[in-house]
């Protein structure tokens, strides 16, 4: 470590009292430590802050029913996003079979569907309703990425589905 004391040589004659000189040198090691610590801190905090983005491609709105995508009933899974972070889902096109789940458990349902249907037929329909939040929609799109679902679409729920969700919500007391 850096030296603290400097040997003092006496040049004065005998009997002359030495005035004790204090060293002016300071140990700089802790200061260097601190400096590098701060540098590391700043480097880490600046690089981590980069926001990421998720690409989203929406189809063009079309009024022509011939251009609508045909989905096989056996391969479709409809996920409805409702109030209070609740997901409703049904397979095929029979909304009366609607069941309730949460965002944590929905992955299992998606995976089960993925396993049970041929890859070419699989189609997930995401329907966020009026009370769903933006986070819900992004979470669900993210879930498609995580589970590698190639084909999915985001559309509005039909009035039938919406009223059914509301009935369920009232029954379950979700506000």
């Amino acid at each position, binding site marked *: 470590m850096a030296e603290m004391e400097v040997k003092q040589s006496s040049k004065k004659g005998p009997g002359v009292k030495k005035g004790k000189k204090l060293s002016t040198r300071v140990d700089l090691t802790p200061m260097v430590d601190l400096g590098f610590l701060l540098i590391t801190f700043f480097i880490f905090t600046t690089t981590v802050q980069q926001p990421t983005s998720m690409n989203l491609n929406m*189809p063009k709105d079309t009024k022509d029913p011939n251009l609508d995508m045909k989905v096989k009933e056996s391969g479709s899974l409809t996920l409805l996003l409702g109030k209070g972070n609740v997901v409703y889902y049904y397979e095929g096109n029979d909304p009366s079979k609607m069941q309730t789940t949460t965002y944590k458990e929905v992955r299992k349902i998606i995976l089960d569907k993925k396993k049970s249907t041929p890859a070419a037929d699989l189609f997930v329909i995401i329907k966020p309703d009026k009370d769903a939040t*933006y986070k819900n929609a992004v979470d669900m799109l993210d879930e498609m990425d*995580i589970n590698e679902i190639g084909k999915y679409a985001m559309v509005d729920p039909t009035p039938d589905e919406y009223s059914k969700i509301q009935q369920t919500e009232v029954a379950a007391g979700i506000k």
Partner: protein
Amino acid sequence: MGRAKIKRGSTSVDMTPMCDVAFLLLTFFILAAQFKPQDALNVTPPSSVSNKVAPQKDFLNVTIDKNNKVFLDMDQKLKADVITELGKERNISFSPQDVKDFENTGYVGVPISQLQQYIKLTPEQIAKTDLPGIPVDSANNELAAWIGAAKAVSLGAHLNFLIKGDDAAKYPIFKAVVDAFKQNDEFKYNLVTNAKQVPEGSELYKKNIREQLEGKKAEDAKK
């Protein structure tokens, strides 16, 4: 014979230059770090597994805050052209001073009719006022006009459309924003999110590992 004496050098090193370097670097990093432009908008974006970095150039950023209000920000170099174009479309004449004021304003948070008063405000005043946001309802979708103006001035050059929504924003408002883009025939957006780890054991996780292994094999084969 006397043993040769090894002269012991002092083990202490003079720390002064090292200290100088450390603090010089420190000062450099602090000054060079891009200070986050004072974001008066307090928005917490949702997280996703996507690891693509959000584009920082040629962007048009639509922000939705937690009260479902819509704000617009854009690349600094686009601002002057966009406001002039918008003025032409809406028959509002913006003076050169107005254009300058607009360039100094961070984001737009008012209907076009209030724009001229709005750009005169200082950032502190803007932070204090309760902004109405840009109207996006289907009857009066002013956001679409803004996007149209930005498209018109970029002359076909690629623009990055960023949408940054708050966790608590409602879905219909997001849909309204997307509709505004759709009206302008734009279908590709970047949703700004916070990065999150890919959940272990999921399909994507397995795929990433597979790709890593394949990448390694390819590298080994090259060797």
